[in-house]
């Protein structure tokens, strides 16, 4: 009798183990499902969109006016808006981030690092809508003082805050890459008579270059996908321009603009956010994959 009960409980345990294992597998598979969901939804509505607007006109058209007649869906103005802000943000964040990383990894004492790293984490954790407020209320007035012809909504102000936003990411990923460089390489360079600067620029940075570049790409992809700060600070004017003092519209800001209005399901405006979303998704995905491949390469070297 006792044996039966025991073997029953064994069998019960065995079934339970299998069920639990499969449940965890399902949790992990949910992530694949999410990706499929995103792609499927973007594709379905995008295909509907391209039945009414030709793909060529979408890709090379220079006028984006989805709400005014005659409607025109050329995405170049939105891409221009996105890129001008991304380039501006990169100009702010990449040098500052790299320099901060060098300081934290090569020069600072552990105590200084202990203070600065949490501050960078806080900076990274501030919501983007707050950065938008900061851009509009603090940075834009300064820009308007310096350049009186600047629009109240301008690309420069948005670029600066997006740059500040991605700076902690650049700094912390670059620092990780630099700390991955074995100490022996630095010591070898010092033994040959290098100064700290030379160790840094000729040994540490080159040795961690793939990690540094990976962090740059990831940060740029973050800047491309940034939404609230650019919606608040850069405005809603889709146009092709290189002047950072003008108001522009990014892809993300357009998507927000449409969803703020009451656009009925099934209209061309509704579908257009999916076409723009698809463009945005493709751009960031390609950059993320590129960044991952670079990091993979860097892992192989030192592990």
């Amino acid at each position, binding site marked *: 009798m006792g044996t039966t009960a025991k073997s029953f409980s064994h069998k019960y345990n065995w079934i339970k183990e299998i069920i639990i294992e499969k449940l965890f597998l399902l949790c992990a598979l949910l992530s*694949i499902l999410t990706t499929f969901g995103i792609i499927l*939804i973007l594709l379905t509505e995008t295909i509907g969109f391209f039945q009414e607007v030709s793909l060529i006109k979408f890709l090379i058209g220079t006028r984006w006016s989805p709400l005014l007649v005659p409607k025109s869906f050329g995405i170049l103005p939105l891409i221009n808006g996105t890129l001008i802000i991304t380039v501006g943000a990169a100009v702010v964040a990449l040098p500052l981030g790299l320099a901060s990383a060098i300081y934290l990894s090569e020069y600072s004492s552990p105590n200084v690092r202990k203070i*600065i790293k949490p501050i960078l984490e806080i*900076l990274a954790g501030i919501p983007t*809508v707050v950065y938008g407020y900061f851009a509009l209320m603090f940075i834009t007035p300064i820009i308007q003082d310096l350049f009186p012809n600047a629009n109240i909504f301008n690309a420069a102000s948005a670029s600066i805050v997006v740059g500040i936003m991605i700076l902690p990411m650049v700094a912390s990923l670059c620092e990780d890459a630099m700390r991955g460089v074995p100490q022996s390489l630095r010591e070898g360079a010092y033994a040959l008579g290098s100064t700290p*600067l030379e160790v840094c620029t000729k040994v540490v940075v080159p040795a961690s270059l793939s990690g540094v570049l990976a962090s740059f790409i990831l940060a740029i992809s973050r800047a491309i996908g940034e939404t609230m700060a650019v919606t608040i600070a850069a405005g809603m004017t889709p146009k092709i321009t290189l002047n950072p003092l003008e108001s522009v519209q990014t892809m993300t800001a357009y998507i927000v603009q449409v969803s703020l209005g009451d656009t009925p399901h099934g209209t061309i405006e509704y579908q257009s956010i999916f076409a723009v979303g698809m463009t945005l998704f493709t751009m960031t995905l390609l950059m*993320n994959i590129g960044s991952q491949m670079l990091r993979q390469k860097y892992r192989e070297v030192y592990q």
Partner: protein
Amino acid sequence: MKKNITSRHYKGDLFKILCGISTIIALIVLALLLWDVWNDGHSWINLGFITNFPSRFPERAGIKSAIWGTIWLMILVTLISFPLGIGAAIHLQEYARKTRLTNIIEINISNLAGVPSIVYGILGLALFVRTLQLDRSILSGALTMSLLILPIIIISSQEAIRAIPTSIREASYALGATKWQTIRNHVLPYALPGILTGNILAISRAIGETAPLIMIGALTFIAFTPISLNDPFTAMPIQIFNWISRPQEEFHFIAAAGIIVLLVFLLTMNAAAILIRNKYQKYQKW
């Protein structure tokens, strides 16, 4: 020759100073941002601001419905994303063999972590609001936010589980425990502080997000607190965005006051995460 060395060291010092200044710039910006927000908003914070609903009159506008919306979101997102995220992390760290599927799942998760939040908003709009007919409800918002932070939760939980030495597991197996018993009684308890830290940070990311909620249509005038999952809602970042985009200047100050409340929420959560991390790091030395 000597001059050459001096100039090399001179250049080196200059470079060090430049790097130091770059680092300080980040700190200055953070200080400026906090000062600016505090300066604009602190005089608008009073009991009425916390207990009033939004209003078109600045002096009567409050953040009550947004605070409740955010609290609802926090609870729901926690309930949905913690079990799923920790489950996925357990699968990847404890069960999965190095197969092609595992590799695909891992690459996929790190890609999902890089997808712009507004794309999750588009997913939420098409899937939860339209297809599943959940409308612009708090449940749609929570589901969308959960999908958004799942990759972060999975990655940080994986790191916490990975830090547990294999010897702990082997000791448990040697005493006859099954895999699940080992995970439940040994791996998870030890990994819990790390998991909690990562998850709290992920939740604080979710409550600061604006774009996905705007996508699913949460930007409306809400003058009540939600009482069920199907109620429409607003949340703090959306309410702040709403105030920023109004033309009257008073609303900009109210937006700053809203930001102060939101930042207090976020900093409290961050502090909790850091405390948990510091408290348990002391004891855990393998």
